C-alpha cells in the first residue's frame, strides 16, 4: 500500500488541474465531484496507508519512497523523496481528513459564488502543496511545499479580488511570509554548508550519532544558528511574533479558507517543521528557549488582543495565533509530541469554530460584527451546539480534546522547570476561555441586536454545512482520548506512537514527579478556565451593559488592545512606508527613470545628435566630397611620413 504514497498528493493536484483548466465550462456538480472526490480519495488512501503503517513494528515505521533525482549539482543532491513515518502519518490524516470535511462544507458555503471552480481549484492546489510539505524527505522539497501553501494562501485570501482590502490582505500575507522565508532558506543553506546534504535522514543521523561514524562534527553554535534561522521561517508561516500580522488580515478570505489554511493546516507547518527538526532543536538549548519564549509571548499577546475584537473571525484569528504559540511552547520545552498533539486537537476545534462562524455569517446574511448579533441559539441550534462544544474544547474543559493536549504542554512546562512559562500559559488559558465564551455569549445569547431584514433571512445552514460541523464536533470530543495522560493509568498512546519519529532528538524526560502534582496542575487549569467562562457569563449575559462600562473605565487599555497594540501602524511607519517611499523616490525615480531610462534614451538621443552631425557631410556637393577625399589622401601621406620617421 505504501507504494501508492505518491498518489496522495497527486489526487488533489489532478483535481486542481482539471478544475483550473476546464472549470469555467463545467457544471457545478462536476466541479464539486472532482474537487471533493480528490480530497476524499486522498483521505481514504491516507487512512489505508496509516493502517498499513500500524501493521509494521515500531522500529520499521520509517519508509522512504524515492521517485527521481531532481537536482544534482556537485555535492548538492535534492531528490523527489517522500518520508512516511508516524509524524508524517499523523499530519497526513489531519490534513486530508480536515481538508476533506472542509471541502464538503464549502459546497454549501460557496454555492452562490461566481468563481466556484476557482475556489476549488485553489483549495485542491493547497492540499497538494501541504501534502508535499508534510511528506517530503528533505529540506528543499519541504520548502517547495512551504512556498506552494504560501502561494495558495495568497490566492485564496484574495479570492474576492474585486475588494481592495482582500487583495491587500493577500499581498500582506505573502510578503510577510516571504520575510520569514529568507530565514528559512538561510537555514537550509547553512544545513547544506554544514552537512553537505539536505536529506532529513542523513542530516539527523549525522547529528545524533557518534562522530566516528559520520565525518561531520556539528557544534552547538552551528546547530543553534540553523535552528534559529529555521525558526524565523516558522514565525512567518505560523504567525508568531514578530510576523503574525498577516493572519488577522487573512480573514478577508472566504471562511472555509480561514478554517483550512489559517487554522488547521498551513499555519501549523511551522510547528511541524520544528518538530521534524527536533534532532537539531533539542541539541540547541538557546534556540529552544527562544522558541518557547516567543511562543508564550505570542500566546499571551494574541489572547489579550482577542478580548476586545468585534469581528467574529478576528477573534478566532487571534485565537489561532495564541494557540500556535502554545504549540511552540510545547516544542520549546522539549515536549515535541505534545506540540503535535495540540496541533491535531486544535485542528479539530479551530476548524469547527471557523466553520461555525461561517455558518453564523451565512445565516446573518454576511454580518460579521458580534455586537450586531445575539440570541442566535434559537435560530441556528446546530451551529450553536457545535460551536459551544468547540469553545469548551479550546478552553480546556475535560473530557474534551483541548484539555488533554493543552494540559500536556502546561505539565511539561512545569516539570521541565519552566515555571514562568507555566504561569503565563495558565493565565493565557484563562483568557482563552474568557474570550471564547465572550464570542459564544455575544453571538448566541442575549438580546437580538440585528435588523428586521436580517431576521427575515435568518436560517440554519443546509446539511452540507452542518454535517461537517457535527463531524468536527465529535472529533473535538473524542480526539483527546488518543493522548490520555499517565495519571489516568494508561500510557499516552499518541506520544508512544510518535516516538520513532522523535527518536533522534535529545529526550527530555520530565522529572519523575508524582502523578499527584500533575493532577493538581490539571485541576488548577480547569479551575482557571471555568473562572474565565464565568467571568464572560457575568459580563456578557448576566448584566448586558457591563462590558461597555468596563471598557469605559479602562479606556486607555481598552483602546490599546482594541487596536492590536498598534503593531500594524508601527510596522507601517518603521518598515513599510520607508520601504515604499525609498522605492518610489530612489529606486523608481532616481534609478529606473533617471539612470536606466536616461541611459537608454540617452544612447538614442546621442545617436540622433551624432547622426545630425554626420548628416551635414552628405550635402550633395561634389566639391566638398572631393575635398574630403583630398583630406583623406593628406591623412594617409601624413601617416606614411610619420611611419617612416
Amino acid at each position, binding site marked *: 500500500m505504501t507504494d501508492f504514497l505518491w498518489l496522495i498528493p497527486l489526487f488533489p493536484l489532478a483535481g486542481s488541474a482539471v478544475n483550473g483548466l476546464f472549470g469555467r465550462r463545467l457544471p457545478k456538480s462536476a466541479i464539486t465531484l472532482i474537487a471533493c472526490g480528490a480530497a476524499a480519495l486522498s483521505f481514504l488512501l491516507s487512512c489505508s496507508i496509516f493502517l498499513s503503517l500500524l501493521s509494521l513494528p515500531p522500529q520499521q515505521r520509517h519508509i522512504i519512497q524515492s521517485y527521481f533525482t531532481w537536482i544534482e549539482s556537485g555535492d548538492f543532491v535534492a531528490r523527489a523523496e517522500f518520508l512516511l513515518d508516524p509524524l508524517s502519518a499523523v499530519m497526513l490524516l489531519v490534513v486530508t481528513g480536515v481538508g476533506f470535511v472542509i471541502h464538503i462544507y464549502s459546497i454549501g458555503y460557496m454555492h452562490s459564488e461566481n468563481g466556484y471552480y476557482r475556489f476549488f481549484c485553489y483549495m485542491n492546489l493547497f492540499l497538494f502543496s501541504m501534502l508535499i510539505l508534510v511528506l517530503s524527505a528533505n529540506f528543499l522539497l519541504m520548502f517547495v511545499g512551504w512556498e506552494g501553501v504560501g502561494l495558495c494562501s495568497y490566492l485564496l485570501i484574495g479570492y474576492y479580488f474585486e475588494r481592495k482590502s482582500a487583495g491587500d490582505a493577500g499581498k500582506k500575507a505573502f510578503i510577510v511570509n516571504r520575510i520569514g522565508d529568507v530565514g528559512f532558506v538561510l537555514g537550509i543553506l547553512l544545513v547544506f554548508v554544514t552537512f553537505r546534504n539536505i536529506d532529513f535522514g542523513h542530516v539527523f543521523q549525522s547529528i545524533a550519532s557518534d562522530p566516528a561514524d559520520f565525518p561531520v562534527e556539528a557544534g552547538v553554535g552551528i546547530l543553534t544558528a540553523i535552528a534559529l534561522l529555521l525558526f524565523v521561517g516558522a514565525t512567518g508561516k505560523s504567525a508568531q511574533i514578530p510576523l503574525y500580522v498577516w493572519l488577522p488580515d487573512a480573514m478577508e478570505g472566504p471562511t472555509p479558507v480561514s478554517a483550512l489554511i489559517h487554522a488547521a493546516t498551513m499555519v501549523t507547518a511551522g510547528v511541524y517543521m520544528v518538530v521534524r527538526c527536533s534532532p537539531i532543536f533539542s541539541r540547541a538549548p538557546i534556540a529552544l528557549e527562544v522558541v518557547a519564549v516567543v511562543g508564550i509571548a505570542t500566546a499571551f499577546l494574541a489572547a489579550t488582543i482577542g478580548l476586545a475584537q468585534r469581528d467574529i473571525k478576528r477573534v478566532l484569528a487571534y485565537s489561532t495565533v495564541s494557540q500556535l504559540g502554545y504549540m511552540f511552547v510545547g516544542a520549546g520545552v522539549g515536549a515535541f509530541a505534545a506540540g503535535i498533539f495540540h496541533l491535531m486537537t486544535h485542528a479539530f476545534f479551530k476548524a469547527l469554530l471557523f466553520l461555525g462562524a461561517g455558518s453564523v455569517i451565512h445565516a446573518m446574511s454576511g454580518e460579521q460584527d458580534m455586537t450586531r448579533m445575539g440570541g442566535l441559539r434559537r435560530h441556528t441550534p446546530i451551529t450553536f451546539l457545535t460551536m459551544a462544544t468547540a469553545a469548551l474544547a479550546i478552553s480546556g474543559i475535560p473530557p474534551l480534546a483541548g484539555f488533554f493536549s493543552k494540559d500536556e504542554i502546561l505539565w511539561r512546562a512545569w516539570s521541565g522547570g519552566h515555571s514562568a512559562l507555566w504561569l503565563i500559559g495558565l493565565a493565557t488559558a484563562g483568557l482563552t476561555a474568557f474570550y471564547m465564551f465572550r464570542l459564544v455569549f455575544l453571538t448566541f445569547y442575549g438580546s437580538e441586536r440585528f435588523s428586521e431584514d436580517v431576521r427575515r433571512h435568518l436560517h440554519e445552514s443546509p446539511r452540507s454545512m452542518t454535517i461537517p460541523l457535527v463531524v468536527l464536533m465529535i472529533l473535538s470530543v473524542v480526539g483527546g482520548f488518543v493522548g490520555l495522560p499517565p495519571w489516568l493509568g494508561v500510557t499516552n498512546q499518541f506520544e508512544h506512537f510518535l516516538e520513532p519519529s522523535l527518536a533522534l532528538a535529545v529526550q527530555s524526560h520530565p522529572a519523575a514527579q508524582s502523578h499527584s502534582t500533575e493532577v493538581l496542575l490539571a485541576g488548577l487549569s480547569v479551575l482557571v478556565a471555568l473562572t474565565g467562562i464565568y467571568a464572560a457569563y457575568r459580563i456578557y449575559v448576566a448584566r448586558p451593559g457591563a462590558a461597555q462600562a468596563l471598557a469605559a473605565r479602562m479606556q486607555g487599555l481598552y483602546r490599546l488592545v482594541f487596536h492590536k497594540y498598534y503593531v500594524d501602524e508601527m510596522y507601517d511607519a518603521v518598515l513599510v512606508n520607508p520601504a515604499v517611499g525609498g522605492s518610489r523616490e530612489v529606486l523608481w525615480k532616481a534609478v529606473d527613470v533617471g539612470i536606466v531610462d536616461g541611459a537608454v534614451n540617452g544612447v538614442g538621443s546621442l545617436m540622433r545628435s551624432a547622426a545630425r552631425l554626420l548628416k551635414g557631410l*552628405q*550635402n*550633395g*556637393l*561634389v*566639391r566638398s566630397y*572631393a*575635398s574630403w577625399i*583630398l583630406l583623406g*589622401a593628406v591623412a594617409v601621406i601624413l601617416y606614411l611620413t610619420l611611419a617612416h620617421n
Partner: protein
Amino acid sequence: MDINHYLILSALLFATGAVGVIFKRNVISLLLCIEIMLNAANLSFIAFSRFLGQVHGQIFVFFVMVVAAAEAAVGLAIAIVLFRNRETLSVDDADLMKW
C-alpha cells in the same frame, strides 16, 4: 637629373589638379583638372620606369591612358546630359544626392 626632381614635379602637378577639382565649378573644368592629376601620376610612372630600368611603368601608363580616355568620354556625356536637363554646368546645382 635625379628621379627626385621628376617626383617633385609630379607632386606639384598633382596638387594643382587636386586644388582645381575643389576650386572649379564648371563640370568640364572639373574633368580637365582630373586629367591633370592623371598626367601627373603618369609622369611619375614613366620616371620610375626610366630610373629603375623596368618597362612596367610605361605599360601601366599605357593602360592609364586608355582608362582616362574612357572616363573622359563618359564624363563628358554626363556633362551633356546635365546641361540638357538643367541648363547649367555648375556642379553646385547638381546637389540632389544628399540627405
